[in-house]
């Protein structure tokens, strides 16, 4: 296991290096002068010079790159152009809100996916199975930027059950979590169904039934735990997509997380903050993927990495 961990960490180094490089290059992709775009054409020459110096754009690209790498290694992602605060501090302040929303979305996804997945697998080709399949297709085809307003329309404006947007109470969390969790629920449901169908056909389930357990008990007590392993893995691997999806969901519900911060930074043309947010989300994705990979072996004792 330690050997595998070291191998994976070694493989991660060039990826992290590459991600930082891509994010560094972003500001250099801007057509024209980034300083002029950030300050506007009417800015004074002295102001432009000052910002150029602050963003280190007055140095050779190689030096800029070296300093950027060094900065990232030390946790210094630069200073926000608008708030004049360190980028990392701004991001870290928004982390709890995004983590709360992501956690709630995953819980919603599991709450929908597990019962539906189990039902469809236990009653394959039944109307319940077909309905679940259709719901999954609906979940996959419904973009979150539509589902969000639709949920607001039904549950906030129509039924008055939850607030339209904002942050602070459990009620505020329901609609954003549903919006973000629906797509994942569809993916997990399909995954659980096919994985459970495979497990149900295994000998140990038949043996459990032969020992007198009802089919329902055999599936719920024995097969389900095994079929959840690939589901949890997919859940881990989907975490990055969830974070990326938070950019839209948090915008719809004015949720004060990293996603909303990214959009605010883009709107304000605060490029150091944009770079910081993108880098943060990408590095979180890489890390969670690694953790998922390692947990996989812990969850399934049959899997041993050499």
């Amino acid at each position: 296991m330690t050997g595998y961990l070291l191998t994976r960490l070694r493989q991660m180094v060039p990826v992290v290096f590459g991600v930082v490089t891509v994010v560094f290059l972003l500001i250099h992709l801007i057509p024209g002068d980034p300083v002029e775009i950030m300050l506007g054409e009417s800015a004074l020459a002295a102001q432009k010079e000052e910002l150029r110096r602050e963003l280190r754009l007055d140095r050779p690209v190689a030096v800029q790159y070296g300093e950027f790498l060094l900065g990232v290694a030390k946790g210094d992602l630069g200073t926000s152009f608008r708030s004049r605060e360190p980028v990392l501090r701004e991001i870290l302040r928004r982390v709890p809100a995004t983590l709360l929303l992501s956690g709630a979305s995953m819980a919603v996804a599991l709450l929908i996916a597990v019962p539906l997945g189990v039902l469809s697998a236990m009653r394959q080709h039944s109307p319940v199975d077909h309905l679940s399949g259709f719901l999954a297709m609906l979940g996959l085809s419904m973009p979150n930027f539509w589902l969000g307003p639709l949920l607001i329309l039904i549950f906030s404006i129509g039924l008055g059950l939850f607030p339209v947007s904002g942050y602070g109470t459990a009620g505020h969390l329901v609609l954003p979590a549903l919006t973000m969790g629906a797509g994942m629920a569809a993916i997990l449901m399909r995954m659980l169904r096919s994985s459970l169908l495979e497990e149900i056909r295994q000998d140990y389930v038949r043996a459990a039934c032969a020992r007198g357990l009802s089919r329902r008990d055999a599936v719920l007590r024995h097969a389900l735990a095994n079929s959840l392993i690939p589901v949890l893995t997919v859940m881990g691997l989907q975490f990055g997509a969830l974070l990326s999806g938070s950019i839209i969901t948090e915008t719809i519900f004015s949720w004060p997380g990293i996603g909303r911060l990214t959009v605010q930074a883009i709107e304000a043309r605060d490029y150091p903050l944009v770079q910081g947010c993108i880098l943060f989300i990408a590095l979180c994705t890489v890390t969670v993927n690694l953790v998922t990979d390692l947990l996989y072996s812990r969850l399934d004792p049959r899997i041993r990495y050499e």
Partner: protein
Amino acid sequence: MSERPPRRRFLRRVARHRAAVAGSAVVVLLLLVAALAPLLAPFDPAAQSLDAGLSGPSWSHWLGQDRLGRDLLSRLLYGARISAVVGLGTVSLSLAIGLLAGSLSGFLGGRVDHLFMRLADILLAFPGILLAIAITSVLGPSLRNVLIALSALGWVGYARLIRGQILKVRELEFVQSARAVGSPPVRLLLVHILPNAVSPVIVEATFGIARAIVAEAGLSFLGLGVQPPAPSWGAMINEGRHFLFVAPHLTTVPGLAIMITVMAFNFLGDGIRDAMDVREEIR
């Protein structure tokens, strides 16, 4: 690898897949609407009529009017053009790059392959539309930049798929025989290997069109896609959501259009996959 079913048998199998038939009907309809939008649209999609802003459906404006009094139906029909262009354009561009990169990587192996795999790992660290958001936020919002931004990550999936297929196909006997009789490497790749490796790529491309349409709408929703007054479905949802209380149809109608389109491509992809029986290959 299973033998590729003959074209007629393949078409018959798709035709028997009810969801795929429904999906392809919607896809054809979308393409027709996109092509014929100027003939079908009752009004100019950009023509404003401020005094009729936020009006509901009526005899002259079947789906109502938006904040600026523009005809929603006409904007929806023209919006199909943007979705079709982005869907097909992104997939074509991604496929072209993916085909080249995947072929070289799989065929040449060694350092080229190693370099490609690392590059793919780096790009895949940017989940969902994150990279596209990053690119359009610096390049500026426009149709061209949306195509570039979506293809910047889109090609990786195709390249990996093609690479995997090539690694599998090139070990098959008929390729080995062609190599043994002295077939030059380029001919080996173009005539013998690639045609036998494309089945899962076609399936993936069908799903890819759906993904590109959603991604474009998402970018436009954030204001990073096609710019107003061009009627992108995503931008229409974003404009409409500020009037959910008074004019919910401004949000629900374009959203429905996106959902039906995406579902259609997904159903079609499922049908093609089942007909080609490449389920195992594209996993």
